[in-house]
């Protein structure tokens, strides 16, 4: 077993243990919400998913910048892996949010809510990022195009984060300075859920990057085999 495999296993172990603890905290330890009841328990993993999607797209943004600066393809691999994991978590945040919205508002989606709209745009932007990569011809043009697209697409992250704080429509603000702040036990459960998802993200990113590296190794070996045929 290599050092990388050991690190990945350790991160996965921490993620699994903290996920089990966070499920216990979310479903058993925290009290029911005064007005919404038990359905509010969706909140812990909805918020954690949304935060991790922001983190993942942030990593894509930083890795994109590092790629453009250094032209080192390893940063493109990191950016791509993080974007894919970010889309998974963004999808989970949108679906769980819709289910919570149905229970709270009576509808799955409110098009007039700017927070929801920008988050959907963010999701679509990174779906387009993956489509763009799939259609780019050379490895270099794929890396250049997706670095620029990932950097521009990241603009939606601070907009999505700030939208409910600026416009205060239907989507509640979780971390507020005074108004509507969380109970201590709920805040603790949320922190543990975010911690657990951060380790899960780290594991998924390491695995995803590892897969891309294996694909590159395969291409290199194929070239060597081709070269020996000549």
């Amino acid at each position, binding site marked *: 077993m290599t050092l990388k495999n050991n690190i990945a296993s350790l991160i996965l172990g921490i993620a699994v243990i903290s996920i089990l603890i966070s499920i216990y905290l979310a479903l058993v330890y925290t009290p029911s919400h005064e007005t919404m*009841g*038990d*359905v509010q*328990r*969706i909140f812990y*993993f*909805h918020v954690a*998913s949304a935060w991790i999607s922001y983190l993942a797209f942030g990593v894509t943004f930083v890795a994109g910048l590092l790629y453009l600066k250094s032209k080192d393809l390893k940063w493109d691999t990191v950016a791509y892996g993080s974007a894919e994991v970010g889309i*998974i978590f963004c*999808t*989970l945040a949108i*679906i*769980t949010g819709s*289910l*919570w919205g*149905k*229970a709270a508002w009576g509808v799955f989606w409110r098009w007039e809510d700017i927070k929801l709209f920008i988050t959907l745009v963010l999701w679509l932007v990174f779906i387009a990022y993956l489509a763009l990569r799939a259609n780019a011809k050379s490895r270099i043009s794929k890396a250049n195009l997706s670095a620029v697209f990932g950097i521009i697409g990241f603009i939606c992250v601070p907009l999505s984060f700030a939208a409910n704080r600026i416009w205060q429509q239907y989507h509640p603000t979780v971390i507020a300075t005074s108004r509507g702040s969380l109970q201590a036990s709920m805040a603790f459960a949320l922190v543990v859920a975010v911690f657990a998802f951060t380790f*899960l993200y780290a594991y*998924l990113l390491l*695995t*995803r990057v*590892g*897969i891309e590296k*294996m*694909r590159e*190794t*395969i291409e290199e*070996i*194929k070239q*060597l*085999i081709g070269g*020996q045929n000549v």
Partner: protein
Amino acid sequence: MSDLIYLYGAYTIVWAGVFFYILKLHIAQRKLENEIKMLREILNGKKSKKNL
């Protein structure tokens, strides 16, 4: 009680989504490991033939 279906739905989707994504990555990883192993064997075979 009727609202609980959304809670169950949300938890099922989150954990099923994470599980299937991890499964997909592991299947891809295993497949690529086997391909690398096979290609290395071909490469080593060609090298030894060349040396003969």
